[in-house]
């Protein structure tokens, strides 16, 4: 089955971190860039992270594995596959922050959200919106949103 997934092109990433900025805004309450950073900074976080070492950098978010370790390890049932996008999503109303998912994610793409809460934080492909914020706002196409073959 073909699904849209975020593809990482490290050769074009310049480490500008605009993806992180726009991911945070997208997941803020106000969705306003100024308010998100000035007022909501302590209650929201980006789900994409830029890794950088010398000239090499890339933006990393959940790889949407087909046999997801995090799904199997989740003790609360919060991690589930969105029936439409096939994305692995964390139901934040169910998550208890046990960190089993963090322990098993081979990409290290899940983080603790301790901003006034205690839950796992990961990419949700912007809940099936046409284009995730990180991809939309990458100036270099170091992130692209492409149809790829996934196991259904």
């Amino acid at each position: 089955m073909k699904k849209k997934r975020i593809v990482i092109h490290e050769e074009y990433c310049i480490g500008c971190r605009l993806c992180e900025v726009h991911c945070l805004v997208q997941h803020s309450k106000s969705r306003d860039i100024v308010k998100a950073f000035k007022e909501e900074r302590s209650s929201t976080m980006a789900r994409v992270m830029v890794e950088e070492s010398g000239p090499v950098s890339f933006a990393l978010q959940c790889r949407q594995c087909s046999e997801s370790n995090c799904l199997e390890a989740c003790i609360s049932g919060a991690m589930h596959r969105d029936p439409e996008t096939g994305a692995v999503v964390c139901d934040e109303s169910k998550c208890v922050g046990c960190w089993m998912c963090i322990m098993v994610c081979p990409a290290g793409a899940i983080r603790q959200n301790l901003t006034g809460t205690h839950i796992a934080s990961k990419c949700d492909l912007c809940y099936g919106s046409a284009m995730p914020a990180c991809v939309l706002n990458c100036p270099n196409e170091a992130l692209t949103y492409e149809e790829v073959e996934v196991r259904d």
Partner: protein
Amino acid sequence: MQIIIIGNSATAVGAIESFREYDQSAEITVVSEEPHLIYSRPLLSHFLGKEIERSRLAYRPSDFYVKHSIRPILEDAVTAVEPEAHTIRTASGLSLHYDKLLICTGGTPIVPPLQGIDIPGIYTFTKLQDALSIERYIDDYPISRAVVVGGGMIGIKAANALMKRGIPLTMVELAPRILSAAMDEAGSAMLTQILAEHSVQVLTNNTVTSIHQSEGRFSGVTLRDGRELGAELLVFGIGVRPRVELAKAAGLVVNKGIVVDKFMRASAPDIYAAGDVAEAYDLVVDMNRTVAIWPNAYRQGAIAGAHMAGVDRADIGGIAMNAVEVCGVPAMSIGNGNVTGSEYEVLSEIDERSQNYKRLVLQNDRLVGALLIGNISRAGIYTGLIRHKLDVSSVRKNLLSEHFGLLSLPDQYRKHVVSGSSIEI
């Protein structure tokens, strides 16, 4: 085709979800002795600690059974498995035919051989009913102190819950240190210190030798060192032993757990076993063994489910691991994180003041274990390295780096992880 699953927990869900990916027509019956729909056993401590409502124990939405066309038979125990006849019998008198049978009966709580433990105030802690009973007891009687017997995973989780209820605690552990199966000495010491800071009395090298009662209720214990403790509640949190009685009586090959192959097939035709009750392959110790953790139960269930549907989903094996918060401080033990010996190379970093600890264990240039306390960010990368048995000799010095991440690892491995399985390591 008739599929029967004995047990209605993590393993059963793994099996059902994977089976239904391949086969929508077979009839699936789940038989469970417990009266509840699938709930999360590990969340019992969060529930008892009043962190979550009872409704959040549900591990899957209530339409799970309908959506997957499952017939649940609840509050009925399977009393016999008859491999020749391909039938099971239940306590209520049912006799059911199976074409494929999955035994995922989990574990039985370990209770030390003590006299007079069948009294109000003494509980095990592995079932929803246990949590409900403890909750009721706490509501009915003032508890000035509780004794938790066992300083392993379940004991710690029981202690977390009782602490959240504001109950003063004594934890009694037979081994010289708590979490001895998961942590090394330094890790255990740090976690013991954290418990002490939260006023938990931790007594190691010790055990309960007799139970006191007053007016028919639990009132205290005598310990091996002669000490007497007054307490109104005692929780056994020692762990579980694989619940193999049914399999043994059916003539299946059983060691500590039910012996299975890589498809989770037991020794009789069309019978599978998975989860806490099974002795499946552990890739770190390179042998079959029982490991009572949720991720392995789910995965083994999924492998069994696929195979019952005629699909080979055998994988490279499981890893013993666990994550637990001790008074809010996260701690993880992955694979052989606590081993010592000349065959291992240990990289470690400890900061007692900030309560951070990391211990990485290498063997033949491969990571075989990791312990993390405090900072657990990106811990799964270590688990991935263990699972892939990647040669980390060229990046050894990066493994404990403050900025540890995928860029700390060989390029090919990074590209493999980042792009999915399309690029070989």
